[in-house]
């Protein structure tokens, strides 16, 4: 991985400090996580809240544009140290819990980076997603969760400007090799999108879309699949009498559940869910979560969520991402109760930034 930041970091001194921080993955700051006395009220706050929204490389430019005194930007003992490193684009190994090593991986992400044109959205991600387990991805908005998720079934191919380095292995086979059948990969992976996207056709046709494109024509099979999927998505009772109506006439939450039903109808090996419950009421959310728990032993689920309780409830493992990097990855219980990094703890307890 090339490191553009080398020229831009101001002082040799600061480099040394950062290096000292990043070579120790399990670095624990000497003082507990309290408000740093030397921290000025305005400047760092502003940076911390404005930066995540900017492009990943933006942190560097911002840092270069207003070079503050080294001591202020890289406080040796503050709880935000680690994230400052990330913001500067330094390589560092994520804190990966040992429990993951005992799991059989289904998807191995290997040194995976993704660029939207010139700007970089993912930085050398290395993680292995355990087989037939639920993995939650959390992290602030714009940190690249959706991008990573969409890279798994290669939906990012559709965006012209995207280029990638590194690879992913799905059941040991490369996803990004030149001769891979993308359609075959996508058929093994179901996806629920962040924004609901029902197709302009009837509810029934929406749900059985995957079967239709496989050429399934037997009515019985289609109807059975449709009912099963709709029940799992907690929608059957609402729409069972209007299956022939357009899916676009449903409410926003119902549309999202149609998309969930569509994704699970083909019984994929992997289910990618990008904030599936963001438009759902608590009851529907609960039902979807129950469904996820129910299928957890049978298929692999990767779920992105901003709802910490949800992540804690449904997932076996949780990955915390920040600005295009994986920060910490481990069993959910550990991430939420005894994370290795104080930053993770701050994020999951809502005291982040």
């Amino acid at each position, binding site marked *: 991985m090339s490191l553009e930041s080398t020229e831009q970091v101001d002082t040799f001194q600061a480099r040394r400090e950062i290096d000292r921080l990043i070579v120790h993955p399990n670095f624990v700051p000497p003082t507990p996580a309290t408000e740093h006395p030397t921290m000025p009220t305005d400047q760092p706050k502003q940076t911390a809240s404005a930066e995540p929204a900017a492009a990943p490389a933006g942190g560097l430019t911002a840092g270069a544009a207003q070079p503050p005194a080294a001591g202020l930007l890289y406080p040796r003992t503050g709880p935000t140290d680690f994230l400052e490193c990330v913001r500067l684009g330094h390589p560092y190994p994520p804190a990966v819990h040992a429990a993951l090593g005992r799991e059989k991986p289904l998807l191995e992400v290997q040194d995976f980076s993704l660029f939207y044109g010139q700007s970089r959205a993912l930085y050398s991600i290395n993680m292995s997603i355990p087989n037939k387990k639920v993995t939650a991805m959390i992290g602030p908005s714009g940190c690249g969760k959706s991008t990573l998720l969409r890279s798994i*079934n*290669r*939906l*990012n*191919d*559709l965006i*012209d400007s*995207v*280029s*990638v380095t590194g690879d992913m292995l799905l059941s040991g086979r490369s996803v*990004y090799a*030149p001769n*891979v059948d*993308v*359609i*075959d990969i*996508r*058929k093994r*992976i*179901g*996806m629920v*999108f962040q*924004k609901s*996207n*029902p*197709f*302009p*056709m009837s509810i029934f046709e929406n749900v059985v*879309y*995957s079967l*239709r*494109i*496989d*050429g*399934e*024509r037997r009515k019985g*099979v289609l109807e059975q699949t449709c009912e099963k999927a709709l029940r799992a998505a907690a929608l059957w009772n609402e729409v069972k009498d209007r299956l022939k109506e*357009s899916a*676009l*006439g*449903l*409410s*926003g939450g*119902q*549309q999202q559940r149609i*998309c969930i039903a*569509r*994704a699970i109808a*083909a*019984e*994929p*090996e992997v289910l990618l869910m990008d904030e599936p419950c963001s438009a759902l009421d608590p009851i529907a959310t609960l039902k979807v979560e129950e469904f996820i728990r129910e299928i957890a032993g*049978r*298929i692999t689920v990767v779920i992105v969520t901003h709802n910490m309780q949800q992540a804690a409830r449904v997932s076996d493992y949780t990955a915390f991402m920040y600005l295009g990097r994986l920060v910490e990855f481990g069993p959910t219980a550990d991430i939420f109760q005894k994370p290795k990094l104080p930053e993770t703890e701050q994020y999951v307890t809502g005291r982040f930034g």
Partner: protein
Amino acid sequence: MTTGMPGNLDPAVPQAAGGKWNARSRSTPLAARGEPMVWLTGGALAVCAIMVVGLLAIVLFGGLRTFWPRPIELVKLVGVGGKPGEVFLGTVVRTDSYTPDPTERARIKALAQAGALAPDAVDSDGLPIRRLYRVGNKEFREQPFKWVPVYQIASTSLEPSATLLERRAWGVWHGFPTATVQIVEKEVPGPASAVVKAEVAGGDGARVEREVVGEGAGGRVLVREKRTWEGTPEVVMQAFLAQHPSAVGRAAEIARLKEVEIGQINLGLEAERLRVRDAEIALARSEFGGADGLLGEGLAGVVVVVASATTALVCIGALVARLRARKPVEQGFLPEPDRRGALINALLLTVGLGLGLLAYAENPWAARKVTAQDVQAVRASAEQEIARLNGRYREVQREIAQVDTLDDQWRVVFTEPSTGRFAPVRQTEPDQPMRISAVVRAVQPNGMSFLGKLGVYLSRWGEFLFDVPREANTEGGIYPVIFGTVALTILLSIVVVPLGVIAALYLREYAKQGALTSLIRIAINNLAGVPSIVFGVFGLGFFVYTVGAFVDTGSGVLPGERVSLLGVVDTRQVVAWWVGVLLMGGLVVGAVLMGNLATPVPGKHATRLQENVGKIAFGAWCLASLGSLALLAYTPYFRGFFEARAPSPTFASKGMLWSAATLALLTLPVVIVATEEAIAAVPRTMREGSYGCGASKWQTMQRIVLPRAMPGIMTGMILAMARGAGEVAPLMLVGAVKLAESLPVDGNVPFVHLDRPFMHLGFHIYDVGFQSPDSEAARPVVWCTTLVLIVVVVALNITAIRIRSNLRRKFLGEAF
């Protein structure tokens, strides 16, 4: 620190050195207020609305009132210089005032002083008023329309028995019914001197006149007997009306015999002629070698191999895919091979291979070996058939003569007032009254009730919409015109919509967006701005004269010197052509390979080398398509599909197909732009959803993008249809004619005749309004045709709009 920081609004936060927060006093200048813009935009809209509504109102008014029966005035003019004034029947068409010359002015003044000037003879400015009368009776008058100053009218009256006759020929006749007549030629016992010349009242109250016209057999004489039933106008009218339907039936029968029966015979004769000609051409060809050797065998071989291989590959591929079917997913249903699909594929495979073998056995490209004896046999059978047809022709002619003789007996006399002239059977025989069957409709509007007038009005509209034109299109109906317009519009959309949609799909979905695609877009948009007559010229030059001639009589490449290639002896042109075919094949294969090479690995950008290879591949494609066209144009031995008909053109003249093609080109930009926009408006999330389900690009396009874009595509189609239906200029060059003998669709094989010229509403308006000898008589037809054109275009549009809104409801509904 700026004053805009939220912190400064909070009173709890100590204020920085920015000073106090002061509420700014604000004002709204006049220009910022909305009212003037409301007036301006509202005014502009009002002007537009008035113009549109005005146009529609004028056309509706002009079109709808034309056929309403108007009163027929009996006009008596003031006598001049002791002579009695003219008396005539006519309907008022228009009234206006004019500036008189000095002598006329003096006369009017004198009349006014004498108190003899009618109050409606001058307008409020003292200018004389004149009326335009439609007087008809063309056989006896130079002008069927007559301007009459009101001060010259002695009196007008509305006679209830004044009758307007609409006739099959010679326009309208105004007159009073005076008699019905029967003229019979019969043999009576001789001698000629014994024939009673006249009887005042025959057996049935008729006045009889007899005239000896010739000798009969056995001393009998041939006598023309004319029986005249005179009476009051009412009685005569009744007698006329009683006979009219049967007379119309006879006329229709004659027309049917002439058009259908004789038409069939003519078709048969032409078919026989073509059969003989074909045989002769085949003989001539087999004498100089024909499309034998390399071309004949080679082409058949290529077709068989390509067709069989493609069907075989496709079917085997599908077969395998179906048998492999879906891979098992853990809790999913077990994969069950699609047996029915496999069966269908196997069937297709068999049929494809069978067809290929059949093609090889029959080998349509090899020259048929025709000998002089064969031609002789064809000629003999054709002569036999022609003799039969000629016999049938004479038979039909006899039938026609029979009906015509009967029809000729029954006449009617409608007399002009004062002159006593009546409508003659033909202009050269002014003393013989016309046939009853010559009358299409007799109207006596003066005494008519409202319902009666309504009946006439509707029957006139019926005739206008469903009958063929007569009298140089100024009378009769416009059925073939409506038919031609609708057929053209439908054919046009059949051509343009698939073409435009496919082009737009490629441009938006497959093509790499770049300088080239923008260039193409610019070119397409500019195409929309080219004047339509330019398309007409192009259509004439390219479609009619080039493509049409190619279809008719082929490439004109004749065999030359014979050479040997790999042991096969053939002519030089054929060898060169095959070399060209091989080159083109190589070019296509190369282009495909290079295209594959140029496609970057997913997730990576194309390298410089790949970009360049891609450009070369594109160039190769262009070259290959041009080369293929050239090869097609120079196909050796290809002498067209209609060689036997030469030199009379089939597709190398004005026709439906080329008109549709020209208009398709004209409206292509509309469809492409609309489709592209509709496709671009399909949300990316929808496509991603489809791809995420494992759909291929084509499946996504077919199941998501196209249905969702369909309303937009329909919009493009509506615009194209409206433009195509209303276009005139290019059609004048490539297809529309003043009078088409037959409709483009009829009962003769092959039922749809795309080579035929047709009539078109827009061209008809131009033709009748500006090219007809009598523009005043054509005026009503112009109004009504315009109305029909508008109705046709609106009807087409409304249909399309309803389909579109249906689709919209189906595909674009949104939840909030």
